[in-house]
Each structure stands twice: as C-alpha cells, then as structure tokens.
C-alpha cells in the first residue's frame, strides 16, 4: 500500500498527464467527426489485421479435419462422375425406342484410402493401404488416384490390403489409346518408376508420341477412361507385328498418398457370365 502511494507521489504528474490526455483523446474521438471517422476506420483496420492473423493460426489447426472432409467429398464426386456409371439404356415402350436419360445405374463406387507403405525400387513393388474387408475391399479391385492408376488389390485382411503396384513386373492392365480405341496390355519392365510399356497394339494403327493412354474398361477392375499416362516413344521391333510403346505414367507412384479403391458393383454378374462361358 505504501509502495503504491510512494509510486503515486513519485509519478503522480505522469499519471495525471496520461489521465488528462486520455480524457482529451476520448473527447476528440467522441465529438469531432473527422477524427471519429479516422479512429473508427483505423480501429477496424487494426482489429481486422489481428483477426486475420488469428484466423490463419486456427485455419492451420483445422487443416487435418479439412483434408479429411475434402477426401470424403472427392470420393463422393468420383462416385458421381460419368466414368462410374453403367449406361442403363432401356426400352420402355414397344411402339417407339426411347433412351431413358435418367437410367444411369451406378456401376462403380470408390473407397478412399491412405497408402501406409510403398516401394518403387524393386522389381515386384507392392503398396499397403489402410482399408480392408471391413470397408468392402477385396482382391482383385483397382486402385487409382486423382492423377491415374496405382495398382490392383492382391490380398485383403480385416483392416488392410496389399496392392500390386503398376510398377510390378507381374501386373498387366488393359489400356487403350484415348479417342482411338486400340488397346493393349500395360506392363512394367523394372527399374524406371516413371515409365511403363504398352504391348500388343497392332502396328497398322497409328499411335503418336503425346497420345493419351487410358484404361480400356475391358477388365472389371477399372472403369473406362481413367488416365494412365502419355505416349513418349513408340516403335515396331524388327520381325514383330505389334508396337512397343513407352508410356510416361501420369501418377507419380513415388509420391502417392491418397488413393481410391474402385468397387465394381456388377462383379457378381460378370463372374456368373464367365462361369457360363467356361462351362460351355
């Protein structure tokens, strides 16, 4: 208490000065239009800057949650995109043929997943993802990213699955040249994680560097039209009738993180069909 009094006695004039200036400031801002306007805009500028900084910090803290939401959203959109539909053209009238434009039946759905283990350096590369039977992931299902294809599910446990990477010498994926329809098998010959080879395209079909390669949709694993890559080089080895096409993969498998497992909703029917053909 005495300390406080001594402080007041020592610096009383300073306090008085600050007090009086405080009153003056209040009067200035309260009763003078110009100064009031300047004060108001400066104050909002100042508080705006502080709030903006605060928002930046909290936005960063919310980032993980946002990424999660966005992944779900992407999965939903992938489900809705045209690639995922089985075009259900139906005859509804005997008198006239009519295409039911609303007859789109979902053919594929996707499950979002995270890559938790990955290799690209060997000859038989595998990935591990954090989705398994519990989430409806069974072998064989296709795995894609937003950039392109990743691989095929090989084994599933309750919560995890191993994926045969595109960068695996055992993998064969049916692929075609976009807009032209010539198709072949995409294989990988080891060592270079950026490039794969498209085989079995007959040499009488014109293929040029720069052409886009996409999935053909002939297998039940991938929808038609998922990006695979771009033609870099192509030539016909002597004595053969098919092209050898080098494809630069669009999905960088050395950096893959967020992937989507493609479920074919008509798988049972396809299997039945195969069964029927085999029994003949």
């Amino acid at each position, binding site marked *: 208490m005495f300390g406080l009094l001594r402080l007041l006695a020592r610096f*009383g*004039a300073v306090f*008085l*000065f600050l007090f*009086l*200036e405080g*009153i*003056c*400031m*209040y*009067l*200035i801002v*309260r*009763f*003078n239009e*110009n*100064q009031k306007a*300047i*004060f108001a805009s*400066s104050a909002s500028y100042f508080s705006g800057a502080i709030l903006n900084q605060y928002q930046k910090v909290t936005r960063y803290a919310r980032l993980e949650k946002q990424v999660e939401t966005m992944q779900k959203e992407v999965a939903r959109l992938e489900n809705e995109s045209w690639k995922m539909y089985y075009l259900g053209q139906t005859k509804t009238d005997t008198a006239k043929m009519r295409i039911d434009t609303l007859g789109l039946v979902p053919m594929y759905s996707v499950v979002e997943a995270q890559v938790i283990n990955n290799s690209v350096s060997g000859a038989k590369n595998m990935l591990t993802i954090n989705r398994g039977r519990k989430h409806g992931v069974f072998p064989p299902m296709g795995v894609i990213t937003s950039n392109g294809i990743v691989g095929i599910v090989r084994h599933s446990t309750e919560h995890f699955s191993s994926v045969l990477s595109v960068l695996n010498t055992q993998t064969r994926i049916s692929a075609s040249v976009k807009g032209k329809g010539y198709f072949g098998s995409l294989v990988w010959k080891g060592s270079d994680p950026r490039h794969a080879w498209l085989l079995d395209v007959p040499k009488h079909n014109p293929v040029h560097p720069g052409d886009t390669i996409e999935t053909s949709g002939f297998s039940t694993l991938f929808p038609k039209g998922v990006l695979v890559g771009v033609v870099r080089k192509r030539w016909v080895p002597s004595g053969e009738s098919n092209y050898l096409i080098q494809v630069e993969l669009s999905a960088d498998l050395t950096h893959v993180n967020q992937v989507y497992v493609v479920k074919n909703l008509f798988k049972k029917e396809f299997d039945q069909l195969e069964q029927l053909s085999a029994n003949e």
Partner: protein
Amino acid sequence: MNNPIIRQGLRLLFFLLFQVLLLKQIPLGPIGPFYADAFVYPLFLLLLPQRTSLELLLLLGFGIGLFVDMFYDSWGVHASASVFLAFIRPGMLRRLEPKGGYNLNYGLTIQRFSLTWFLRYAAIMMLFYLGFYYSMQVFSPVFFLEIVAKTALSFVTSLFFILILMLIFNPLD
C-alpha cells in the same frame, strides 16, 4: 495588482480573450493549400514561474485548452496539446538552464532572462505544441506532410504574435 494569483488570472483572461475574440476571427488566408493559425494562449503556460508544480501546470493546461476548444468547436484537440505542452515544460527548462541557474520565483520572461533565451525557449515549446496540436487535428500519420506544413506556417504566425505581445507589455514576472 500585487497579488500574483490575481495578476496571473487577469493575464490568463486577457490571453484567452485575445485568442478567441481576436486571433480566431482574423483570416490569415490560405498560404498554398493550407490555412495558417496563430496561437498565443500557450504563452500563459510558458510564462508561469519555475516553481509552479507540474500537476498544477497540467490541470491549467487542460482547463485552458478546453476553454479554447469550446470556441474552436474542436473538443479535446487544444486541451490535449496544452496538456502535452505543460508536461514537457520542466524537462525543457532543465535543458535550457542558463549559466547562473534559475530563480524559482521568477517568471520566465524577457526581462528576467534575455531576448535570445526567451526566443529560443518560446520557439522550441511552440514547435512542440503546434506539432502535437496538428497531429491531433489531422489525426492520421497518413497526412504527415500536411501536419508538417501546417505546423511550419502556424509556427511563424504564432511566434510573430507572441513576440509582439512580449515586446509591448514586457512583463517582469
């Protein structure tokens, strides 16, 4: 007239009336894009004897400033400037101390000191006063050049009137 409080009171009354009835009415005209003002009422605070306590100076400055604000219709602007002037007075006097030191009872006038000492003292103090006053009037560092220009113009006119008054009346204390 020998009672110093009555004397100072009359002087204050004179300065205030001189300020609000005369100087406020004189149009000093636009010099360039700016209007010059002339302020002499801070002279009252400058002339008070050395022994006047800082608290009293601050309160006087506040009251006088508010009175002038009433006529200039600029609530708080003059008051804040004269409170500021009162606050820096003791420190400034310490810096300007003449060789013989001060006599605490003397007023800070030309007669008690010298014309050059007083001119220096008044010039520095008015510069601070006007700088603070126009900062409060313009109220934004964005218009820094405007503050400087107005301060410079009004500095000349104010000092001119202060000098005239001092030479005419030439008070002892």
